[in-house]
């Protein structure tokens, strides 16, 4: 069992070599993954999918009161 810095270095080396020797499809899907994550977490989450209750209310009590109203009056 090696020391922690040696282990970290080995793990780093493992990933580094893995990424460097990646085949064409590996590189291509990584590009797709990065673009996809950008679209999902930056564009969609920030601009289109704000949390409705968090946006509208400051605390949990207000949120629960609001939802309670919806439950009581829904028809």
């Amino acid at each position, binding site marked *: 069992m090696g020391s922690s810095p040696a282990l970290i270095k080995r793990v780093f080396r493992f*990933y580094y070599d893995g990424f460097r020797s990646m085949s064409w*499809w*590996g590189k291509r899907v990584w590009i797709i993954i990065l673009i996809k*994550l950008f679209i999902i977490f930056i564009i969609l989450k920030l601009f289109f999918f704000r949390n409705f209750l968090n946006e509208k209310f400051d605390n949990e009590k207000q949120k629960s*009161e609001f939802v*309670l109203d919806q*439950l009581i009056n829904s028809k």
Partner: protein
Amino acid sequence: MIDVPDLTLVDWSRAQFALTAIYHWLFVPLTLGLSFIVAIMETIYVKTGLEEWKRMTRFWMTLFGINFAIGVATGIILEFEFGTNWSYYSWFVGDIFGAPLAIEGILAFFLESTFVAVMFFGWNKVNKKFHLVSTWLVAVGASLSALWILVANAWMQNPVGMVFNPETARNEMVDFWAVLFNEVAVSKFLHTISSGFLLGSMFVAGISAWYLLQKREHHLATRSLLVAGVFGLLSSLLVVYTGDSSARTLARAQPVKFAAFEALYDGRSDAGLVAAGILKDSDRKIGKKVVKDFSFRIEIPGFLSFMTGGNTRAFVPGINDLILGNPEKGLLPVAEKMRRGKVAQDLLRDYKNARAGNDSVKMSTIRKVFADKQFIEEHFRYFGYASVENPEDAIPNVPLAFYSFHLMVTLGFYFILLFCLVLFLLFRGTIAKQRWFLWILLFSILLPYVAGEMGWVLAEMGRQPWIIQDLMPVSTAVSRIGSGSVITTFVLFAVLFTVLLIAEVSIMIKQIKTGPNH
């Protein structure tokens, strides 16, 4: 001030969620199935030491990697939608939905992400056995991830193990094991992962057939067909078996959905199972809804009673019995459930008034009532009915449930036949010569996708009008946001997912054409 949702908003929100879930489910089952097939092939390689099995493992692992990478994180969007479009629902379900999804996230990240790297980067760098263990852990991790999602979904079909807290307006988990071992969760999990195994097997069988049609990679194709044939046959038998137990569970937990599968309106003993049929409008109505009748049907006498009750004399309730009630069989009419739901809703209103008046004694009393087993059983379990306008609104879309169920079941039996034929022709050594059969195998790749999507249509549309069975209708669950923004994101998703799908298919096709010699 309470906003009444317009139908457009509810429908678009549902359409958006359906679109996201349907696309997500194009990627998931192949990950579930192919990961196990790759693990089986690698096990054979480690056991035998034959390089041909290593070559085969690496080839299918490449296709697994493409699908895994393209599909990863597509499910996150569903969680965004919960917070934006379904925020009342998300709040109401509380930690019951949050806990399984958090476990799923942790499992997916640590098990799959860590060991996927070993799977792809670890060839010739880690020892064979460690590599094999990593491959199996990815396979098991993928199924475990699915387990937690399905546990959350099963709770929506059959809410158990919780108590509603009027103070927070949330359901709180009081029995984790009841949620985990919810009878719907167990049958749903087994049925879903076995359908993923089946899909993975069909994928391998179809592509192997293509190689044989091209007169290429004969050895790889026939060996892969053997693995896919055996695994596919076992999976398809498991799909039918778990489908049967799943239907039995639904008959208890969601009897209206079950009756809609079979378009059974009038309950009876010695009820037959409809093997095939065509529906038409009849002259009868339940409230404003037209009752469907069969213009043609093939029925297996007594089998539906046998399936649900263990004998042909068992009574199977129909939609009429479940909506209008059947005192002889102890079935409450929906009108009575609406009354009981309103009792729970009125008590919640009393709680709100008591809180406004700082009446802590009354608040405490009402909180105790909401935790009382008898009240839960007699009133709170029908809470959602307080929001239903007419009894017939509790009927789902019968033709949709009927046709999607029967298409799924027909395909289930088709897969058994197909995998039997694969094994038969393999053992006779003539499969490469049966070009008609190879073409059928190739085009059958699409069919488990159809069956899987039909299963989800059935599970979700068959539950309507509920988002949580009997507790919350979809109309109450949807956030009052502008339908314009929902339509915009619907279009965005359609474009994004279609681009991802085209990317996946084109990279896969290129890799399949290249073959294992890359």
